[in-house]
């Protein structure tokens, strides 16, 4: 009953698909989604750059050079330097690792909770379904950012507090989605056939139901990464998330406030924020292309 908000329509309207719901048709639809594909490529570039970049860069992210303080972007320092003369590009790449890993870990945890709860509710039905869906409603009605802030502040800042709390606040839509898929799938003949052949509940759910619900799961996983990265950077921007020496994009922006607003060093804030924006944008576009590929009927 809560969260009556209809499912979000996709970002980009693709031409009507005249393709089959097969793997091949899926690939065709994905390829037609050019914006989504380019977003996927750019995302891969960002991830690889963050993973490999710090080694490729000629600078050390933590090397202090007082002669190079507060330099604007130049050929030698593409994103300029900070007040200690550290190269910003290298720092953005290093900071990206923690941002991306937090996003990924949060998504995996949220999927674990969401898929388990959704599958159990959809498969078991009856009062189990009723109770689980009320719990989903309750979690949906919790003011997320506020609870995140309090939880991290009271439980202490660490990678796992942040990832687990974020996951606990973001598993619900996955649970609803999976429950819906399982509900419609379990009424189909092949499930009945499997049961007649003697398959147990676990086997039916794991081998017959979940693989067929993979589409919505993958899509919500992708979009979940975007949500998690944004939430983590908001928390870190407020100074309540990761603390130095841990650097994330949000934390870098937090530290950039004074340099940008008082000293006019715009590059200190512009580039870390651009990194968040581009990453989340690409994930959203790519997730949308995936949704379209899995479900040609969506608009």
């Amino acid at each position, binding site marked *: *009953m*809560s*969260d*009556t*908000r*209809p499912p*979000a*329509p996709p*970002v*980009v*309207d693709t*031409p009507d698909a005249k393709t089959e719901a097969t793997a091949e048709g899926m690939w065709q639809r994905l390829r037609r989604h050019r914006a989504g594909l380019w977003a996927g490529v750019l995302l891969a570039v960002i991830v690889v750059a963050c993973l490999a970049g710090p080694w490729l860069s000629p600078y050390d992210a933590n090397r202090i050079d007082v002669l190079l303080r507060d330099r604007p972007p130049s050929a030698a320092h593409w994103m300029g330097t900070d007040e200690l003369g550290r190269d910003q590009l290298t720092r953005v790449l290093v900071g990206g690792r923690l941002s991306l890993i937090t996003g990924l870990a949060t998504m995996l945890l949220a999927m674990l909770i969401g898929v388990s709860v959704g599958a159990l509710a959809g498969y078991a039905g009856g009062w189990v379904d009723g109770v689980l869906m*009320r*719990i989903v*409603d*309750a979690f949906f*009605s*919790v*003011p997320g*950012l*506020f*609870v995140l*802030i*309090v*939880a991290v*502040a*009271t*439980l*202490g800042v660490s990678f796992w507090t942040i990832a687990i709390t974020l996951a606990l606040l973001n598993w619900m839509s996955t649970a609803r989605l999976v429950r819906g898929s399982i509900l419609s799938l379990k009424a189909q003949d092949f499930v009945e056939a499997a049961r007649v052949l003697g398959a147990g509940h676990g086997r039916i759910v794991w081998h017959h139901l979940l693989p067929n619900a993979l589409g919505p799961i993958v899509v919500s996983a992708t979009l979940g990464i*975007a949500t998690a990265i*944004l939430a983590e*950077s*908001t928390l870190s*921007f*407020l100074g*309540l998330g990761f603390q130095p020496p841990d650097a994330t994009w*949000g934390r870098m*922006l937090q530290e*950039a*406030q004074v340099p*940008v*607003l008082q000293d*006019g060093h*715009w590059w200190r*804030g*512009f580039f*870390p*924020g*651009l990194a*968040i*924006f581009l990453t*989340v*944008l690409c*994930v*959203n*576009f790519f997730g*949308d292309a995936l949704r379209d590929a899995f479900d040609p009927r969506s*608009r």
Partner: protein
Amino acid sequence: MASFILRRLATSVPLLLLISALIFALLQAAPGGPLAGSEGGNSAGEAAMQRLREAWGLDLPVWQQYLRWLWLVLQGEWGQSFNSGQPVLELVAQRLPATLQLAATSLVLSALIVLPLGIWAALRRRSAGDYAISALAVSGMSMPIFWLALMLIYVFSVRLGWFPSTGLSDPRSGASGWALAIERVHHLVLPVACFTLVTVASLVRYVRGAMLDVLEQDYLRTARAKGVSESRVVAWHGLRNALIPVVTVFTLELPRLFLGSVVIETIFALPGVGRLFIDSVSVRDYPVLMGVLVIASVIVVASNLLADVLYALLDPRVAVGAR
């Protein structure tokens, strides 16, 4: 209809109890509890700590503490701020006007922008303009709002000097009457712009989607077949029905009138509820945190309820279907 509303109300009460228990458990999990900071203290002494624990009921089992707290809350006893000693409700009421100014202005402005934009995109489906609006929507949804705010302040406040960057007004100007009103509007331009941009981006697709759904309905074809003019088909038959889901989506934005935007209030130094919350986190002011969280949850649940009821009122098929 009355029974539909009653049934919805009846499910909201256990829901609220569940949420309040969740929040209570969360705050209980704080290591050492609310007195941790003062423990091992110098002058307080063990006896004084014990008196404080008894006074706040901290020596009781957790579930008894919860029931005790719930009982007090229901009587309007929300406790006092550890920090300032002020009653929590009074403190929240002081901060509410700033949040309301920001959020109400932004939501009204968002509605005025998002409705024509979404409808236009639906009518011009797959045109360049439609794609541009979609691209804008996804960009806005991917935008870290603190980055947007920081860059807007840099450009319009630091560089160009067009707008002030912090606060609701300038205490030094001593303006009053109309001059003060204009000064306040001036201060709100940047925060409202940020809030509105992000809201428009997240809502425009719902409006577009709702309009697209309606445009495909048989009753529109019937209206056209009857010879109703195209503009009347869209504006009268189409829009009225498209607005039903849109009303729902907007109702779900209502909690933001109370919650405001933590990020915007922080970065623009607006003395709103979100800012109160952040300040209370850093000093571990549990009664205030608890109070804000509970009010926020009540408002979220109430808005969900309102959205359901409005939907059923506007589209009677819903209430019948749910029976």
